[in-house]
């Protein structure tokens, strides 16, 4: 392996202020570490930075890399972390041993505060590509959580990076889409996620995206008078894309201990939830749906011979970057998600 690390340079044209960068081919991780250290101390403010996590992003193709770039653009001024990207396209381990790396120290201002983060971009080939944990272990920030995001496909259950990760970010919807026969793949994908969640804390971006629907449905049963209707759920109809619909169904069934036969799932462009409950001869009907193609959710609730109300809510940012930012705020195990996934995996067996 040759070591031809470049000189430390200040990139005045960087999109963020005075972002110093470093890049090298055929480098060692030790050189990468030293470069990161030197860059950090090239600015007094960066030396005093505050970090909250190490975020590792694993890409396998150009689409994944583009996703990562979009996410980083969003994350940089908002999340003080060390980000390490690792590019591992198929067949990379058959190439000669090598590590190409780049380091960039980034600064931005958020709400009047200087925010510093650093990014380390790794492209290992050959043996190093097969032992990614050994590359990353020296680079993760001490005492802070390590979050690993696999863009697109799910990680293999034996992936060495899983041992390094405190939290694993996946996207069940993208994982289903990446399969050759997406519809047929749903049982296997959810089964794999259920298996993954037994070993790691799993954060599913698809789960984050349906958060607003869960919120809207939950709020229809807030207050003692409404809550009791949950004891008499007669039917639930959920339509939308198959993966989020399955997640929603699993969530409703696991939270309310409903039999699968009560829930009907169907396909449509946008999510729609219809629910009918009965209590002491009185019926409660509710419908939550997207308003045409607008980023709005409409909810309507009516109790027979009783009150009714309508609500309108703007849909939050459901982009990948926004969802990842949401995950990074909350890295603990989500028991509700795990119960939902396990129930669904059991249904689909």
């Amino acid at each position, binding site marked *: 392996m040759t070591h031809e690390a470049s000189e430390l340079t200040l990139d005045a044209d960087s999109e963020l202020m005075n972002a110093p960068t470093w890049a090298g081919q055929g480098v060692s991780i030790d050189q990468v570490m030293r470069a990161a250290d030197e860059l950090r101390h090239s600015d007094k403010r960066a030396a005093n930075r505050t970090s*909250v996590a190490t975020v590792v992003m694993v890409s396998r193709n150009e689409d994944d890399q583009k996703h990562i770039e979009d996410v980083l653009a969003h994350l940089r001024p908002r999340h003080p972390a060390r980000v390490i990207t690792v590019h591992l396209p198929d067949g990379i381990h058959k190439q000669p041993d090598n590590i190409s790396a780049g380091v960039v120290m980034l600064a931005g201002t*958020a709400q009047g*505060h200087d925010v510093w983060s650093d990014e380390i971009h790794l492209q290992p080939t050959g043996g190093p590509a097969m032992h990614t944990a050994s590359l990353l272990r020296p680079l993760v920030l001490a005492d802070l959580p390590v979050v690993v995001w696999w863009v697109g496909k799910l990680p293999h259950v034996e992936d060495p990076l899983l041992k390094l990760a405190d939290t694993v970010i996946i996207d069940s919807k993208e994982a289903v889409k990446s399969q050759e026969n997406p519809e047929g793949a749903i049982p296997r994908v959810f089964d794999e996620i259920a298996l993954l969640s037994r070993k790691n804390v799993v954060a599913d971006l698809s789960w984050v995206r349906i958060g607003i629907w869960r919120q809207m449905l939950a709020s229809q049963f807030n207050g003692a*008078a409404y809550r009791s209707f949950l004891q008499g759920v007669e039917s639930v109809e959920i339509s939308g894309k198959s993966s989020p619909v399955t997640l929603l169904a699993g969530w409703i069934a696991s939270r309310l201990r409903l039999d699968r036969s009560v829930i009907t799932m169907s396909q449509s462009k946008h999510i729609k939830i219809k629910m009918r409950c009965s209590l002491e001869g009185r019926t409660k009907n509710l419908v939550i749906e997207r308003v045409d193609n607008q980023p709005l959710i409409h909810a309507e609730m009516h109790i027979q011979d009783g009150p009714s109300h*309508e609500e309108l809510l*703007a849909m939050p940012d459901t982009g990948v970057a926004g969802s990842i930012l949401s995950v990074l705020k909350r890295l603990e195990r*989500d028991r509700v998600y795990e119960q939902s996934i396990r129930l669904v995996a059991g249904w689909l067996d």
Partner: protein
Amino acid sequence: MSTAMADLASIVGQDLPNPLLEGLDASRQAPPNVLVVFGASGDLTSRKLMPALASLAQKRQLPGSFAVVGIARTELNDEDFRKLAIEAVPGAGPEWESLVRNFRYVTGEYADEQTFDDLERVLGEIDSERGTSGNRTYYLATIPGVFEQVITKLGQHGLVDQSNGNFARVIIEKPFGHDLDSARHLDAAIHKVLGEEQIYRIDHYLGKETVQNVMALRFANAIFEPIWDRRYIDSVQITVAESVGVGHRGGFYEGAGAMRDIVQNHLLQVLAITLMEPPASMDSTGIRDEKVKALRAVDILKPDDVEQNVVRAQYASGWLDGQEVRGYREEEDVDPNSRTETYMAMKMKVDNWRWAGVPIFVRTGKRLPKRVTEVALQFHNVPHSPFQASDTRGLGPNAMVLRIQPDEGITMRFGAKVPGQSFRVRDVSMDFSYGAAFIEETPDAYERLLLDAMVGDATLFIRTDEVEQAWRIVAPLQEAWSNPSFPLARYEAGTWGPEEADRLLQRSGRKWREP
């Protein structure tokens, strides 16, 4: 409560948790209720309450069965009130417009029976139409002079009755009285109608995320609490500084002064949180019990000792932020011979095991060089310095500063070796900024406190014994200041206060920090 909802409520029996809420970002959600705002056409409503409600709506923390009833003397109808609400939150999302459609308005004098008859009718209609289950949150955004009258009328009309399993809570804005006697009188009158658990006395300072962070720092970390006492701490300085003058509030401020405006409430709350013992739990009883204990341990000055331990002052004209500003007596609606204090500094003693012998210096003022609220803990010097005196010249005592606003965070000051052959030690400071670690919008204090009241969490509201104790602490000052011969110092606007305040610390060999 409507018949339909009463029927439903009777079926319900007990209020079980909502299993669908578990794990959600907005798992803290208000139950169905009507927020009734007295003083709905006023400044506080449009400037603070409406934006707080819009933010809660946007975060899905208000239920579908929710409505607002505005009530004030100003002649408005429902549509006018809705328009005011929309205008109060420019750029709010569709959920705000959707929510505002349910707003209602009642015009009337608070002394008139008709006003409360109308309110009762409107609340009944809302219960039937929207299923708000008879739950009420009343917000008294009015002048303090009508608190007693409004609460009495609410009681007479059965509007704070909780006998059907519903709740009725009343949020009261400060000031809670203007001295110990008036606070006791108001409290007695309110308690004729309401139980203490129905009363939510609001001090928006406690709703600030960074004030709550003081508790997180102290009670969620093992490294600070062991040194948080007289064995390690030499003195404490609490500063609540404002750069603004009285502006258009001259009329109000003439009757309040720095002591009633800041010290009796905000400053003593910050002091209580800084000095309190660790609570057994973070619930309303646990925290408020400990705050009261801390306030009870504050040594009440004897009137004769006030002059020795307290400095009151008033700002004169000066230069601030590159602009010449006028003195207090030249301000709008201020008596040209006013003796109202715009600055106050005080040396306090706390008589308990933890703080015995540690002087607590507090100060607040207007037209100081910058807006800042901080708590600074100054530590004792090392018992023996092995360095030559010349090597540690300029080395100050260790300090930990909790910056509450505006740049929320923590600064630690300690000595470090200057690189080189000699062993010179200098002060360095290490800064932690909340804003750089958690880059997300924190909820506004009113947003937090409104939701707390609706969900029935009184932790960040002030209990009756806290109010009384705070008045007891400042009562000797009020008595001493009632004597026209009590000194009123002057300080130039844009400075950190009068020389008399500096001397208050110099007498014990200390000096004020310059935040």
